[in-house]
């Protein structure tokens, strides 16, 4: 996207795994409903709906969210209608930009089955593997718990997805090791990071409120560190995620090494369009294009 501001042309485009993105912004999986798509027209360089699973999932009982300092903890529990219904509803997200799909399974076979099911769908440009869900074959540890498990699921998915890019979405814990494993197993990109395990307690009620994942600006410096370290450890492009709240944050993630940047929790309180405008303003002020910013720390 070339935004004309004052008299300077700003070049927001980036290339991600051979796909042209007119802006480096992508919605973080699970944070943009189809009902809200009208609000983000033109903002995102690629689309990415909420993670889908082989069968419908009801998700966790409420309360599912709690606010924390500069962030929130959620335990949605991957509520989704299952991949078949998901594909029926998918047209809403097919808005003329590359469409990534986030998938999660309870086992390696489920991941593979999902990849097979969707990889022939022409609307879909790429796949994001949500590796932070519990691996039922390994006692409930997540697929991100160690490099061996990351390597296994990425390699298995790679074997059935030959034409489309795969991004492995990693948690902060073990990000660098897991990134190397995912790259070795054939991932075309890495999404860094998912939410950080966290807990909230209602002290008056003496109850656990929400045990889930922390997101929002609070985790930005953690995510930025992970992106920075991972980008030094691998050669594949990185999709940064975690606490991005402003155009300057987008620039920071790209400088740290991200090729594209996901907007999650902040979209609940700010219009993503504003973030894109701020980012365009940053590029105008610095005279750089988005693509030039990637990893361009001095």
């Amino acid at each position: 996207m070339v935004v004309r501001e004052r008299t300077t042309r700003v070049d927001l485009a980036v290339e991600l795994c051979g796909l042209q993105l007119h802006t480096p912004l992508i919605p973080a999986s699970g944070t943009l409903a189809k009902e809200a798509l009208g609000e983000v027209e033109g903002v995102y360089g690629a689309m990415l709906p909420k993670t889908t699973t082989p069968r419908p999932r009801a998700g966790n009982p409420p309360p599912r969210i709690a606010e924390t300092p500069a962030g929130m903890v959620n335990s949605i529990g991957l509520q989704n209608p299952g991949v078949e219904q998901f594909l029926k509803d998918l047209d809403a997200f097919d808005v003329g930009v590359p469409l990534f799909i986030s998938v999660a399974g309870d086992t390696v076979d489920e991941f593979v089955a999902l990849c097979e099911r969707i990889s022939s769908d022409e609307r879909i440009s790429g796949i994001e593997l949500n590796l932070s869900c519990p691996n039922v074959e390994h006692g409930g540890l997540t697929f991100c718990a160690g490099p061996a498990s990351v390597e296994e699921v990425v390699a298995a998915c790679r074997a059935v997805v030959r034409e489309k890019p795969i991004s492995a979405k990693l948690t902060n814990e073990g990000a660098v090791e897991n990134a190397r494993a995912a790259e070795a197993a054939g991932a075309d990109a890495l999404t860094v990071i998912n939410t950080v395990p966290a807990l909230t307690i209602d002290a008056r009620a003496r109850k656990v409120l929400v045990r889930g994942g922390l997101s929002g600006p609070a985790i930005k410096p953690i995510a930025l560190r992970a992106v920075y370290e991972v980008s030094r450890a691998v050669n594949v492009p990185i999709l940064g995620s975690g606490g991005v709240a402003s155009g300057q944050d987008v620039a920071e993630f790209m400088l740290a090494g991200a090729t594209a940047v996901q907007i999650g929790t902040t979209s609940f309180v700010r219009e993503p369009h504003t973030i894109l405008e701020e980012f365009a303003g940053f590029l105008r002020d610095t005279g750089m294009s988005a693509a030039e910013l990637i990893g361009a720390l001095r």
Partner: protein
Amino acid sequence: MRFYPVDIEERRELGGYTLLSYRWPDGSVQPGQFVMARVAGYPVTLDPFLARPFSFYDHDGEVASLLFEVRGRGTALLDRAPERIEVSAPLGHGFDIGANGTPAALLGGGIGVAPLKILSRHLTARNVRHDIFLGFAEARFAAVAAEFPGSKVATVDGSEGTRGTVLDAVPDLDRYGAVYACGPNPMLAAVKRVAGEDSVCQLSVEERMGCGNGSCNGCVVPVRDGGYVRSCIEGPVFRAEVLAW
């Protein structure tokens, strides 16, 4: 989510609550719809980070008002906001006042009184006979009942009106053709149990909200057909029989 800065027109105390009004020239607000509101920040405030949901207390096409109770950080800051706040609205599905039975009973528990003002005005405009019942923890809050002439009040401590919950103020809920209720979820579940089988019973639920526009799946309620639905999009008002309470 898009937020609009609005200038505060008036702020006053009403019972233990704050009534805050601001210009909102948009004719389309339905009773039971809500706003996400927060103080204006730099360029977005991180403290608190999320906006908070509030029912429209009233809206005359030009000025909107919210009635709220100071509970925590979000409401404390809104209560003190100097000149302007930021709102996103109107959100959600409100009360269906189209083809419902009469007479109607409006039940408010605590700050659940909020959406009953605009609801009552709309019902009156349609000549729907209705009675209003309000339950409060203490007499201090019950003062808001003055805004609902003819309403019957209950207080938990018995200091004002009937002693007990709002349901204790309604001797015969099952004779109403339509029931509209807003309040804490346990109260709504009780209303559902007591309401007449043939009445159209609508409940405005209260769940924590992250986004208010359907994106986070945080605000869900369990439904009869299994699973959960989002109260910010499919609700916050639900037909009682839809809810798995």
